[in-house]
């Protein structure tokens, strides 16, 4: 009979409002959508950096190549010296045959180019050690270097460091973009809805005179904002998807060192981010724009 929430009425009012100011609605969807795509892209870059850092096998691993002249006893000796170093967590021996096999595997079909090397394997025996604390990296590498019989030390720290750095920068930019673009979108959405409110100011006046509650007056505008937001989120999601698949194909096909998360694994979080941000911005825009019309 009489209810304080009439979804049908609110929706109709909201949709009318969107089409009444078609161009402005389109503009706010476009702006909101660009903001979302930018934010989404930054998030995706950030996700993939994390993914790559984790994917790089044992990033805190250092590979120590041994002097080919060493006897088996010497090799065991090196291992016990390594274990004596405080920051060393695990020590694994990788023979040169094993190393060649792994290398061949990593090449996949191209592994055939290694045929014939079995008898004249140029790779050296190695110890793979992992560290307890990456911060003590330099000291540990120095200590390891002091041990007799180690001819070469290989680590991926520079790579990891640059990835981590990039991630921090991306995170920072991402946050700022979120703040700036969020504010811009909010402003545009609120102004779009203000146009609707202006076109409806006589209706609002009548609503107040006949005793409509403040929420009854607000809902259509909040819903208008949510609809604008939801539409922008939908479009942004499709664009993001398209861009991602495109880049994913490129990266995977060109066999880059970097790996990308498949879309399926990021789609949900992108969806939640887009949905959450746009609906929050949309409804907030609606609430802000109606505020001054509701003074009792």
């Amino acid at each position, binding site marked *: *009979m009489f*209810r304080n929430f009439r979804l049908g009425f609110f929706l109709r009012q909201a949709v009318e409002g969107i089409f009444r100011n078609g161009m402005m609605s389109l503009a706010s969807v476009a702006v909101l959508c660009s903001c979302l795509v930018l934010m989404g892209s930054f998030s995706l870059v950030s996700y993939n950096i994390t993914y790559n850092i984790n994917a790089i096998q044992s990033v805190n691993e250092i590979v120590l190549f041994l002097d080919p002249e060493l006897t088996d006893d010497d090799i065991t000796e090196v291992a016990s010296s390594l274990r004596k170093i405080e920051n060393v967590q695990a020590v694994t021996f990788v023979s040169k045959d094993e190393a060649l096999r792994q290398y061949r595997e990593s090449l996949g079909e191209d592994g055939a180019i290694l045929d014939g090397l079995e008898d004249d394997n140029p790779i050296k025996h190695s110890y793979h050690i992992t560290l307890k604390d990456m911060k003590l990296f330099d000291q540990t590498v120095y200590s390891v270097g002091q041990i007799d019989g180690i001819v070469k030390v290989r680590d991926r720290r520079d790579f990891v460091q640059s990835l981590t750095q990039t991630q921090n920068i991306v995170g920072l930019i991402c946050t700022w973009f979120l703040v700036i673009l969020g504010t811009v979108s909010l402003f545009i959405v609120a102004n779009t809805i203000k146009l609707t409110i202006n076109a409806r100011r*006589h209706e609002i006046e*009548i609503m*107040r005179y006949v005793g409509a509650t403040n929420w009854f*007056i607000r809902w259509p505008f909040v819903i208008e904002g949510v609809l604008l937001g939801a539409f922008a989120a939908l479009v942004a999601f499709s664009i993001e998807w398209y861009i991602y698949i495109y880049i994913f194909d490129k990266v995977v096909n060109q066999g880059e060192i970097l790996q990308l998360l498949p879309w399926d694994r990021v789609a949900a979080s992108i969806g939640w981010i887009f949905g959450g941000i746009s609906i929050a911005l949309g409804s907030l825009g609606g609430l802000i724009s109606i505020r001054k019309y509701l003074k*009792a």
Partner: protein
Amino acid sequence: MIEFQNVTMKYPNGTKALNDFSLTIEDGEFVFIIGQSGAGKTTLSKLITREEKCSSGVIRVNNFNLSRLRDRDVPRLRRTLGVVFQDFRLIENKTVYENVAFAMKVIGASDRIVRKRVPYILNLVDLADKARRFPRELSGGEQQRAAIARALVNNPRVILADEPTGNVDPKMSLEIMELFRRINEQGTTVIVITHEHALVRYMKKRYVEISHGCVINDRVGG
């Protein structure tokens, strides 16, 4: 019942629009409020609808004590009042029917009730045949009748009309007065603010004359 007890209303700029003003209007009465321009008539109306708050005194409207009324309860007060304006304030892009239906829908009435009630009210104000017209396609008198229909549709206890005949020719003014009389005969309190003494003389109802924010005359007849 509407009751003003020693009400003083001072606008923020210092103008005293009502000064120790007292007035009682019983349920079912028909009352004219008259007085010169600036006497405080519209202020009285705005105090009743709680568009303004009084500076001191007590105002009671339909069992609501307005000085204690919380903002969020104002809609409940307003649902007991039907307000009619000099300039009609119909929504231009809605038909007569839609204008009247709108007033019901925005207080949450279901479509079923709206469909039953609106034609009944339009019939009451004699606009059934013009339900599909837009306000610009109606005469001033017809627009005002549409506005009265809108004020009536939620079945208020009081109809409050501020200069309802200000934009309507004299013959139509009398018709609107007859409409108010019919509404009043069905039990609704009717308060009409007007400049036109002729209407008061014609209707022979109670009239309250205000001057400088005080009641200077309160009698029946014309």
